[in-house]
């Protein structure tokens, strides 16, 4: 029997077995590389990938510990073609090429890939490549993700696909050059050798496999595997409702200083079962370490889709035939030119992009009837590179993954976000042991615990993150720095009435008497305790902190792992879940009272009756205090014109307007809207005998009324908002709030940078959406469906 595959006939049984073998081969190579690596982020966080590529660069079988690099090496192989390597440089059996130029492939400088051509009986039949993260790359600061980097040349050594092994022989001169350029040559060499060993293993096995199945079959089956991946993905995408879904996310991470940036994502689901992702609005590239090159953006799109829409799909570049990048503006933070630093591309700006994309995708999933798949945005990684001489007298350079990866996931429909373990780019997130890190680096983790109230409030709250107090111990030659974001403005947006996760920070406390106090039994459990109990120089900091030389007893307090975003109106949260959170240390009573309208009795239990009364009162207040969206826009347009906004917001809007024609058009559109809608109807109409055509959000349905007219209406009280392709937010009640009213104290963002724009149902006061945006920012329209195009307005 046989299946037709264009030209060649493929035995389906042989094919199925072949795919198992090929997957097992790359998996074996990946494990070899992972186990031999000396990098925590490779070994413990699993940041490693080994793959087999066909001669054109299509990744046929990809084994990854993390998903960031899934499409990356394809670009490296294509670069070799474009640069005529075969003709000018020579590609021979036994060669291996090393690359860490993120403009070619990879996400940032620490991502080293080694690409090896595979020959079978003299014919080049493809490539194997292994890619993993080596923290120390000789950048301006240790660790390769440097807040003080302002251009690519501060990011460390750039190695654009250079031949490291020629015909099986290591070029020692080149190796020595690489080792001479980094602070931890041993770590660099260890990782290089680990990748080479992984490649060698895969090469051997591929040849064995071809011996078994024959070269023609091998080639044809590889092609079919790519097609199968494509078909699978297409079919899954066809389950989504065609349309355009929009979302946005912000960040304050820049470099040594903070500066706002935006990413607005437009995700189009086509009738043909394809997804096109573009970012019509995005901030311009900057002299900072938080830019990304296009390969990083591409990688982010794929990993986001893999862990949400396609967890059971085939991991190869066949996916790129149905999931495509649309326009990503050139010289923007997401498509920077090669002179820009991209140190924080991986888990900084790209993760912000992922958050916006996830928001858009979750909206598509909900409106396609896949509620249980909805996942509110997670957060970004704030982390602590550290280097110097460790307590064993050995040079070291590392990233403390115990601190970085325990982030909260976004809320879900019916469930809270997963606490302290979610990174969208790595389903197998591994939270290192304190002992593992304390053995490697001269530190003591004094405190590592859940940060209460850090998850975004909502009916289903975001997962909480973790906070740390870490001190230097056992060495006085140590440099520590920190990178992160989400201090002044949130990096995620709540969905369907939920809020973003809380503000992150990173404080130093230097020259402390911590040893003495600890011996006296005085234990600092929180940032507040540190200030009250310990003596020393306290330096509150934003999350991006350039390197400092520290001494034993110096410490830092960080909320390295942020919280995920919440989903749904917090007034609908089950009070029992709040009690459980308080008991588990994931919430505090004081903040819960403020966020959820719950009333506790004297013994700390919920007073259900009073809670219900209070929540009803809160909804009434919303109806009284909210103004209609169109009216709100009017005042906002006016403020923009008059410059009556905080300077930071005004400058940000101006910068975005100048860089982005699409953003300019959004501002213009709001102006036109104000002129066209001089008289605003404020009456409330209810839909009668409406038939639900689709559930758009938990609180909004698209309904057909008895006259055959189609509306967006409240699913709780039948209040009509507008026609289906209009922006329902214009017809909701809006109220702008200082974030500190919702998340007090150090949980709060800066009101000059961001306001919480709450949208309520004008009929019942349900909070249907929250936008966490800079003051004066235009209101986003999240949906556009082809099926409703051409309706009246």
């Amino acid at each position, binding site marked *: *029997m046989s299946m037709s595959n264009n030209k060649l006939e493929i035995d*389906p*049984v042989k*094919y*199925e*077995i072949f795919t198992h*073998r090929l997957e*097992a081969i790359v998996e*074996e190579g990946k*494990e070899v590389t992972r*186990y031999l*690596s*000396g990098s925590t982020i490779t*070994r413990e966080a699993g940041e490693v990938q080994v793959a087999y590529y066909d001669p054109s660069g299509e990744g046929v079988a990809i084994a990854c510990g993390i998903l960031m690099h899934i499409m990356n090496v394809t670009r490296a192989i294509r670069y070799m073609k474009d640069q005529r390597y075969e003709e000018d440089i020579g590609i021979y059996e036994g060669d291996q090429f090393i690359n860490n130029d993120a403009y070619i492939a990879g996400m940032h400088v620490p991502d080293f890939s080694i690409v090896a051509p595979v020959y079978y009986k003299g014919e080049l039949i493809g490539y194997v490549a292994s890619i993993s993260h080596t923290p120390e790359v000789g950048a301006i600061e240790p660790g390769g993700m440097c807040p003080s980097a302002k251009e690519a040349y501060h990011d460390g050594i750039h190695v654009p696909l250079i031949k490291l092994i020629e015909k099986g022989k290591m070029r020692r001169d080149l190796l020595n050059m690489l080792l001479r350029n980094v602070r931890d040559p041993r*770590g660099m060499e*260890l990782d290089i*050798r*680990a990748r080479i*060993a992984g490649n*060698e293993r895969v090469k051997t*096995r591929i040849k064995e496999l071809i011996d*078994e199945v024959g070269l023609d079959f091998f080639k044809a089956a590889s092609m079919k595997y790519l097609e199968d991946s494509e078909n699978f993905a297409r*079919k899954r995408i066809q389950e989504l409702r065609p349309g355009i879904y929009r979302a946005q996310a912000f960040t304050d991470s820049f470099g040594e200083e903070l500066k706002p940036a935006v990413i607005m994502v437009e995700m189009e689901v086509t009738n043909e079962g394809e997804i096109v992702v573009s970012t019509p609005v995005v901030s311009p590239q900057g002299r900072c370490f938080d830019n990304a090159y296009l390969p990083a953006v591409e990688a982010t799109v794929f990993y986001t889709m*893999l*862990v949400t829409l396609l967890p*059971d799909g085939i991991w190869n570049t066949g996916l790129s035939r149905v999931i495509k990048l649309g326009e990503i503006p050139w010289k923007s933070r997401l498509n920077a030119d090669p002179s820009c630093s991209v140190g924080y591309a991986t888990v900084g700006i790209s993760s912000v992009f992922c958050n916006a994309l996830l928001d858009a995708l979750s909206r598509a999933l909900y409106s396609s009837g896949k509620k*249980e798949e909805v996942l509110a945005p997670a957060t970004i990684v704030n982390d602590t590179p550290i280097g110097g001489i460790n*307590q064993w*007298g*050995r040079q070291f350079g590392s990233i403390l993954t115990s601190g970085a990866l325990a982030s909260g996931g976004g809320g*879900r429909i019916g*469930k809270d976000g*997963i*606490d*302290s*373990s979610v990174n969208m780019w790595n*389903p*197998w997130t*591994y*939270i290192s*042991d304190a002992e*593992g890190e*304390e*053995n*490697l680096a001269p530190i*003591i983790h*004094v405190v*590592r*615990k*859940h940060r209460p109230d850090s998850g975004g409030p909502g009916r289903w709250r975001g997962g909480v993150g*973790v906070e740390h*107090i870490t001190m230097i*111990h056992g060495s006085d030659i140590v440099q520590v720095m920190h990178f992160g974001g989400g201090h002044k403005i949130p990096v995620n947006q709540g969905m369907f009435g939920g809020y973003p996760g809380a503000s992150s920070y990173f404080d130093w406390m230097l020259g402390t008497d911590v040893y003495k106090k*600890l*011996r006296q*039994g005085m234990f600092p*459990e929180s940032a507040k305790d540190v200030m009250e109990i310990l003596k020393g120089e306290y330096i509150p900091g934003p999350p991006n902190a350039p390197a400092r030389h520290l001494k034993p007893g110096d410490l830092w307090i960080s909320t390295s792992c942020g919280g995920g975003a919440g989903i749904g109106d917090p007034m609908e949260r089950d009070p029992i879940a709040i009690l459980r959170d308080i*008991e*588990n*240390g994931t919430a505090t009573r004081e903040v819960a009272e403020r966020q959820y309208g719950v009333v506790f009795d004297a013994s700390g239990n919920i007073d259900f009756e009073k809670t219900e009364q209070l929540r009803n009162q809160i909804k009434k207040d919303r109806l009284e205090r909210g103004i209609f969206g169109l009216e709100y826009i009017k005042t906002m347009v006016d403020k923009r014109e008059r410059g009556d906004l905080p300077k930071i917001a005004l400058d940000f809007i101006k910068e975005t307007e100048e860089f982005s024609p699409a953003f300019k058009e959004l501002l213009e559109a709001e102006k036109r809207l104000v002129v066209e809608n001089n008289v605003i109807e404020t009456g409330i109409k209810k839909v009668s005998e409406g038939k639900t055509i689709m559930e758009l959000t938990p609180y909004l349905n698209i309904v057909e009324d008895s006259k055959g007219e189609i509306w967006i209406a409240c699913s709780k009280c039948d209040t009509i908002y507008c026609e289906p392709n209009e922006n329902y937010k214009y017809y909701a009640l809006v109220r702008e709030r200082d974030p500190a009213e919702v998340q007090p104290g150090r949980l709060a963002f800066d009101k000059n940078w961001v306001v919480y724009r709450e949208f309520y149902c004008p009929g019942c006061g349900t909070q249907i959406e929250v936008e966490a945006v800079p003051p004066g920012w235009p209101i986003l329209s999240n949906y556009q469906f082809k099926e409703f195009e051409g309706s009246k307005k």
Partner: protein
Amino acid sequence: MAVLSNFHGKRCVIFTDTGGTFTDAIVVFEDGTFLTGKSSTTYGRLEISFFESIKDALSSQVNLEKVLSSAEIVGYGTTHGTNIIVSGVGGAKVGVITTKGHEDRTIIGRLRAAGLDRREGMHIVRADKPEPLVPRRLIRGVIERLDCKGNVVVPLDEDSVRHAVRDLLKENVDGIAVCLLWSFLNPIHELRVKEIIQEMASDVSVVTSHEVTPVFREYPRFISTIVDLYIGAALRELFEKIKGKLSDQGYKHPLQILQASGGLSRAEVVRPGTTLHSGPVGGLIGVEFIKRLYGYENALGTDVGGTSFDICFSPKEGSPLLREPIVGRFEIATPMREIVTIGSGGGSIAWIEPATGVLKVGPQSAGSEPGPVCYDTGGTEPTVTDADVVLGRIDPNYFLGGKMKLNKKKAWKAIEEKIANPLEIDVPEAAESICKIIDGTMNATLQTSMNMKGYDPTSFICVAYGGAGPTHCAGYTEGIGFRSVIIPPQAAVFSAFGASTAGLLHRYEASCMAMFMEMDYDEVTGKFQLENLTSLSQLPSEALDRINSIWERLEERAKDDASAEGFSLEDMNRNYEMLARYGGQLWELRVPLKSGKINSIEDFKQMVRAFELKYLEVYGEHAMFPAGGLEVVSLSLEIRKQLWEPRIPKIDKGERDPSKALKSERDVYFNEKWINTRVYERSALKAGNIVEGPAIIEAKDTTIVIPLDRKVRVDDYGMLIMSDK
């Protein structure tokens, strides 16, 4: 099988295994004959099914008391502990005292997706953390701190301990797990916390993490410590009940418990955590028995059951261990023998992937309920067993020796509708494709798992067992090049049989974190230059002292346990191992050592050479990294004692021609055509018979398929040795 009346008074070993659905028993007599029995597992009162299964094996003709009084060993393997962890039901209420500031360690977890398969783990929206074994409200921190060298940085604040204990006692905990950071290097604080708890509440059980498993990395160590209490009480209660009844019925020796490390320990001393996932290890012990029987160096076992394909390894240096195995959704620090498992078995469902039209088999399984279509018990999805029936490989009238009639028509129809029609092929072709895919999947797993470990198949024998192992072993071993493939006479009950051959075993492991940096090395070979070392004084004394003191500690514990089992340490086989790596690496290699303590520079050199040899074997010379120096992370000592060795009876000799065992002929589908095939009765085969493929050999509990290019030789023990023609 032998005649029951012969058994009275014969020495025997009884082994019982409590599984999720059934409890199995095997009674093996000194002459190698055996009886097997089965009963439904009686949840809540597992001791009932324990005895029922033995009674079933003996049937009504033999008196249980008589057999028990002549039993040398009664062994017991149980999933009880595993079930408590997986279900979260029946565990003790445990409180935890830990280092202040780290109270959330076990709640935050380590690998969120632990225990999930690749697809489940990828699907983040559904890949929640497990419910913790100890909820946050039962975890208390105490002020104390050690550093990574075991030095006290913050002395234990005893007031904070008393406060924590009072809190936990108020919550009425059944036991307290003391889990402090770095305690494995210096137990001073854990010991003091334990004393304080015992002063305050003498009736509360206390365990400390350095006692349970004194190893590096706190998450798995803490979980192992919690598990010790969480399942401990329930297990001890069960063992007590069984022991009481056994001695009432005349059994004179200790009840021996099977551990996942591959050996027995008496019920009084066994650590609860070692019983977790002990079920599949019986097969490995059986493989080790076969190795001893023939004097082979390297062997592996392949077990095909209804839902899974399990591979275990027994190379000459000893069976590999999983360092931090996963039980349910938790990583623990109690090592287990490595069993590689994939979801391929007789019950694996064949299906067509809708988007690509590709035929897939598994990982979903019809299990025993509803079971394959041919069982006629409600299954509607075609399975591997259905394909075997359709192809004529399994005789529908002789399944389980004819005890269960299979419905071939239904199996045929299911394959026709669900597979053959959509693929536009005929039914036998579809059925053969199902078998080829399942065999190919198992084959790929087998090859990869050997490759990962650097095992050379030509020096290994492969033992095939489990209900469906003999049916599929020709397929899944094809092209691998094993020295031979052996199908033992006890194939269908091989795990139970194997467990009955288990010896005593205790394992100890402790981390020492000893570093030998700055050793000279040859840049070309990548090897350490040991010739320059002439005296131990050239090495860091701190590292040497730590290694030697840990060896002393481990041997001390081994001595105590050996004497508790009634032996002296000298009576036991001792295996020394270290976990070591190049400095700077983060994961360790397990290296067998000839001896423990380093008394001379030669001992040290031997240790380093053993590491280099193993490293080269597994990773090759490109990966050598002597610049990092050598780091010895942990040491382990294993003591073993074989208590009993069953004799396998030899069978009668016959000629090369197996015709006397021929029972019938039927059409069997091989390589896309129906071939008239001879069918032999296994019990009638004689030593020296050679059965050439194509052929089928039928036993009461399994069917052996010999394709065209294979043959089977019957040896003196009645083992079937399969090889290429």
